[in-house]
């Protein structure tokens, strides 16, 4: 055998590099498709009534309407759309970045850290999911040349416009989640030696910093320990890199910035100098993000 790894292990190692669409993107695509189907069905009825069914039938590949081209609510005055300029630009990040992926949405739930939120649900933290009016997201991928060494994006950023008071509610929820989930052990399974092995994954979160940007801000440090086999107690994979999530609010806009693997230079990791962003650099990035939110925030700043 060419190397001491089973086929299943090799396959999963190889597939770990695959870039996945975020769940919200999958849901948005499903929603767009349902909407398009409904639109086409309505158009077909109209076409039949007007005797032009042939023309409609030829348009089955009509592009989906943009998700958030224009907001549909009118209750709140002030700026509604979130322009791209309200998000960080690749030049704001000291690290090299590659392709920028983006998406806008309506009525999306504000997500801070899905794993932390899962822990919160298990630990009974009251579910106070904040639903945004509109949102815009971006993911800054690594340059193609760097992807062989590190998987995942450099960072992802979501900007949400929320109802008055909901921003503060979100920060309150984050505080509760941190109190409840300083450490969380998650049972799972992992492919090992040709079969699935029960494992335990330990996650730790801590408040790294707060009040460093905007009207409100927090920086969460998420450290995962190497997954361990439940039977043998041995580690089954290397320790995942530390990840940082920053939540910054300016007026009615909240941004969540999550670092990708290897983006943070953390003391616990044996990383070469200048390989990632230091915590002071992350604070600066948070302040830059807050400054960019100003172009679209209500009230203006």
């Amino acid at each position, binding site marked *: *055998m*060419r*190397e*001491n*790894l*089973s*086929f*299943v292990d*090799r*396959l*999963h*190692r*190889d*597939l*770990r*590099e*695959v*870039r*996945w*669409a975020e*769940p*919200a993107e*999958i*849901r948005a*695509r*499903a929603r767009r*498709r*349902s909407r398009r189907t409904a639109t086409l069905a309505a158009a077909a009825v109209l076409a039949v009534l007007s005797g032009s069914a042939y023309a409609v039938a030829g348009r089955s590949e009509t592009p989906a309407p943009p998700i958030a081209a224009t907001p549909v609510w009118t209750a709140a005055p002030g700026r509604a759309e979130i322009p791209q300029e309200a998000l960080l630009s690749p030049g704001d990040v000291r690290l090299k970045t590659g*392709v920028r992926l983006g998406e806008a949405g309506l009525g999306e*739930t504000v997500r801070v850290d*899905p794993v932390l*939120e*899962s822990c919160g*649900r298990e630990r009974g933290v009251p579910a106070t*999911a904040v639903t945004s009016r509109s949102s815009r997201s971006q993911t800054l991928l690594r340059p*193609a040349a760097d*992807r*062989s060494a590190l998987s995942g994006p450099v960072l992802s950023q979501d900007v949400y416009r929320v109802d008055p008071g909901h921003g503060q509610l979100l920060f309150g929820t984050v505080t509760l989640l941190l109190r409840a989930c300083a450490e969380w052990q998650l049972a*799972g*399974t992992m*492919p090992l*030696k*040709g*079969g*699935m092995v029960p494992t335990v994954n330990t996650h730790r979160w801590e408040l790294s910093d707060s009040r460093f940007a905007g009207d409100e801000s927090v920086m969460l440090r998420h450290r995962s320990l190497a997954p361990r086999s439940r039977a043998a107690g041995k580690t089954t994979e290397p320790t995942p890199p530390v990840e940082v999530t920053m939540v910054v609010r300016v007026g009615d806009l909240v941004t969540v910035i999550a670092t990708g693997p290897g983006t943070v230079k953390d003391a616990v990791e044996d990383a070469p100098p200048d390989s990632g962003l230091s915590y002071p650099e992350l604070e600066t990035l948070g302040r830059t993000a807050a400054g960019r939110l100003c172009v679209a925030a209500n009230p203006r700043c």
Partner: protein
Amino acid sequence: MPDVDGFDEFYRGSRQRLLGFVYVLTGNLAEAQDAVQEAYIRAWQRWSTVGGYDDPEAWVRVVASRIAVSRWRSLRSRARAYLRHGAEESVPAPGVDTVDVVAALRRLPEEQRTALALYYLLGMPVAEVARQTEAPVGTVKARLSRGRAALAGLLAVSDLEEA
């Protein structure tokens, strides 16, 4: 109101497993990823029903497999993958060893390939493989045995442990 959190957790927790399974069936990673993604989109459209199943992953697996093995679909998905990702390679090529095994798997009859993928990749017991493929347990054991023999030169000893 569909259970957004439940779907998101399900998607994050199962997608890698599902991708490995479909990739082994099809031998084309970009195509497998496209099929898996499409299956999750369909799952979300019906999540109020699919999310209530005892094993929603089995539903998505069947849908993704059907999508992936369709010739028409595979041609279209390749074109879509290219259009979506452009010339940039968004799906890194698996290692040479993996490609060798998957290429060898592609030469096996579909039922042997499916049995091997369910048993080795997803860790299902023989009885469950039999249930999912609607075949007697003895038939599944024979398929696994023949599949192992065909791949013996390419697999590690731990891959070849008896069912």
